[in-house]
């Protein structure tokens, strides 16, 4: 059976599934139960400075986007860092780490952008026996207004500076948590690397307004008639997070920088996808906030089964395996030609593929009087839209044409050669083939 134990920048855990810094990791009670349920590690809810803790709003904190059957697809929050006193958190972390020495306990930290502040707090926290630090440069609301969180994370120079202070202040591993609220994730990632960070984790939440109350004319969640942008997370953000992970993993400068993948991870498959793109482990928040700690059991069994099926013995065997296949558009093979094929036996005749292709794509699907749907190969550009709108999984597939086969749309035989845009005749800056 596959070995799920994980070693992320020297931090060991029974499996690569950590809970991200957020309400699930806000206190001892939660974390103990999370470890009992099977989670491999936690990043404790972000700690702030000593003294009176931050306060949260006393109205609703969350907004949501739902899919069919009221499945939670996206969550947005206006919560701040921990609102419990530092001493209490430290005592609890100490007890938890003592009782769960084999599990990872990471301290997430956010203090003002001053050298003293960081250098004072890290050693204090290290007393708990924690395994490392995560610098929260991500929180996009509230804390950012006070010059912390994403206010730091959006300025690469600050990231580098704070990371360096932290590395000077501790021997423990330092992870920099990145905000996605930037133009290009490579700048903050490179800055973290320059500052000496051992790893980056991403993504934190995305600036968002999830809904507007049309009676009160205010964003939700609404507090006494007003709302503010909150941080978006959950399944809806997974594609954005995965792209950022892949960009860092395939960028030569940062290719060796370890990544802890975060953003919308809900199932073992999501985790495997992040890891295939280059994340050494993953962190989860919204999925446990939706379903509870127990989902990790499915993640453990699912990942093990898949690894066994594929013959991977440890997670390191597949981490980053998909990275080399992430490329630029210009290198995609334009001679690779596919056509949609509708399996009439599986088709339930809803006509969605027809509406999609006819109204918005290439008029490549024919609908007969008795509702038989067929693809017109001479019109199909293989865009895949029909596949995506069909409610029956696997009913429409894309068939790859063999080299030499006729593409009825262009009237040309399919070339066996790889040919991309850089050498395409329509490309004004194409290099003439030698």
């Amino acid at each position, binding site marked *: 059976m596959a070995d799920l134990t994980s070693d992320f920048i020297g931090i060991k855990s029974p499996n690569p599934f950590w809970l991200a810094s957020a309400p699930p990791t806000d206190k001892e009670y939660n974390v103990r139960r999370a470890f009992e349920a099977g989670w491999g590690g936690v990043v404790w809810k972000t700690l702030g400075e000593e003294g009176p803790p931050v306060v949260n709003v006393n109205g609703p904190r969350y907004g949501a986007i739902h899919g*069919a*059957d*009221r499945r939670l697809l996206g969550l947005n929050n206006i919560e701040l860092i921990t609102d419990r006193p530092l001493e209490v958190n430290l005592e609890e972390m100490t007890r938890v780490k003592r009782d769960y020495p084999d599990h990872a306990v990471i301290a997430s930290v956010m203090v003002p952008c001053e050298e003293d502040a960081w250098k004072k707090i890290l050693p204090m926290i290290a007393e708990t026996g924690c395994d490392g630090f995560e610098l929260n440069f991500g929180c996009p609301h509230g804390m950012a207004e006070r010059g912390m969180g994403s206010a730091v994370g959006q300025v690469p120079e600050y990231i580098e500076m704070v990371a360096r202070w932290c590395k000077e202040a501790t021997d423990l591993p330092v992870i920099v948590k990145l905000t996605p609220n930037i133009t290009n994730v490579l700048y903050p990632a490179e800055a973290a690397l320059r500052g000496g960070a051992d790893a980056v984790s991403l993504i934190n939440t995305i600036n968002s307004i999830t809904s507007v109350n049309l009676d009160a004319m205010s964003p939700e969640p609404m507090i006494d008639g007003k709302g503010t942008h909150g941080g978006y997370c959950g399944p809806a953000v997974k594609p954005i997070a995965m792209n950022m992970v892949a960009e860092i993993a395939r960028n030569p400068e940062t290719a060796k920088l370890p990544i802890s993948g975060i953003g919308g991870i809900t199932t073992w498959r999501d985790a495997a996808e992040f890891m295939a793109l280059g994340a050494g482990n993953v962190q989860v928040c919204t999925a446990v906030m939706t379903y509870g700690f127990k989902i990790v059991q499915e993640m453990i069994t699912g990942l093990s089964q898949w690894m066994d099926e594929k013959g991977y013995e440890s997670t390191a065997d597949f981490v980053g395996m998909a990275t080399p296949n992430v490329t630029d558009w210009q290198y995609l093979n334009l001679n690779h030609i596919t056509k949609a094929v509708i399996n009439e036996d599986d088709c*339930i*005749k*809803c006509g*969605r593929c027809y509406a999609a292709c006819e109204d918005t794509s290439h008029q490549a699907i024919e*609908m007969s009087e008795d509702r038989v749907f067929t693809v017109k190969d001479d019109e199909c550009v293989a865009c895949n839209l029909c596949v995506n709108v069909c409610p029956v999984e696997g009913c429409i597939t894309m068939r790859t044409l063999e080299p030499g086969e006729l593409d009825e749309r262009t009237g040309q035989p399919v070339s066996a050669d790889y040919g991309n845009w850089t050498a395409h005749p329509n490309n004004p800056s194409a290099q003439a083939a030698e």
Partner: protein
Amino acid sequence: MTNSPFSEGIVAGRLATADLADNFADLHPRLDDHEALVAADRCYFCHDAPCMDACPTDIDIPLFIRQISTGTPEAAATTIFSQNILGGMCARVCPTETLCEEVCVREAAEGKPVEIGRLQRYATDVLMERGVHPFVRAPETGKKIAVVGAGPAGLSCAHRLAMSGHDVTVFDGKAKAGGLNEFGIASYKSVDGFAAREVDWLLQIGGITIETGKTLGNDVTLDGLRAEYDAVFLGVGLGGVNAMGVDGEDKDGVLDAVDFISDLRQASDLSDVAIGRDVVVIGGGMTAVDAAVQAKLLGALNVSLVYRRGTERMNASVFEQNLATSKGVRIITNASPKAMIGNGAVREIEFEYTDNDLKPTGQTVRLAADQVFKAIGQSLDGNDLPDLEGGKIAVDDTGRTSIGGVWAGGDCATGGDDLTVTAVAEGRDAAEDIHATLSA
């Protein structure tokens, strides 16, 4: 309670009032808001949706379901009513399993269609409970139209005509409007006086006068109506019942199922409705099932529904047949009635087994029966009518009859199944044709 299911003869009060109330409660209660959202979620918003094609009134089903799922059931109801003004009743009585839901793509996908009927009920109830009537009349045209019959066909026709600005007078021989909605549909499909409430709601459009107790052939004549009105629509339904032609049919205790149902529907107290201990219903359609089920629900000890061919030939859908058996009705097939036996009152019926082509086998069987309901079909009643075809008023696609200026629709006319929804569609379409003719 002095009587019980075991009491001999035809007696009232076999069950306690509370049990009767339970038995005659809504068959499919209205979905609550959450259930409606979950049910609406399942609709795929099909292109050129098959369900729409299967609806005799062509309701835009994907659109109204989408309107429910986006939190606007009132808009959904308007979508429904714009095609079918009796969408509330149809939501309750349509055999959806043989109409829209039969062809729903999710029936093909999972054997579990989108619950179109119940969603329709949800949306229409929401709007009707607000007392809102979503349509307004066009400016008055000054044209007068007579509608005969205040059943689904007549009401649908009248509403559409009134909406177009015409003045409509509806004549009905009965004391109450509604037709079989009021006097025929099974009680558990239309509870709490819904049929009457629906008529009141429909009349909010204005421009419609209902004259009850006015029978065509007695109180008014077709020629008289033609002379006085710009157009006439006949929606008189099938008032007659087919005779069985069996010995002893005139014995006490042998009744027409439609009369029994009508009395039941009009009873103010179900514990006053008398029912036999051993009830036999003869027939295989919706009326037979309704009579049998309601007899059982009233507390009859044994109820048998006897049909002369096999179940697959029964007009009642599989859903209806299952409903009957689930309520304890015994369905006996391939048995034709031969004789009602008894001294004055019926005591037994003799049947002969017959195959699906009604070929006699010579084998007979007797069933105990102190009450027999005949449900072997209704027929058109009356003489002052346009030309008939196959026992019904001959009409073309737009409801025109053999007499100029006279349209017909619903059960009394040719074309379509004898269903509430079909009657609504035919009444509406005739109204459109009358309007077009009068505006030409």
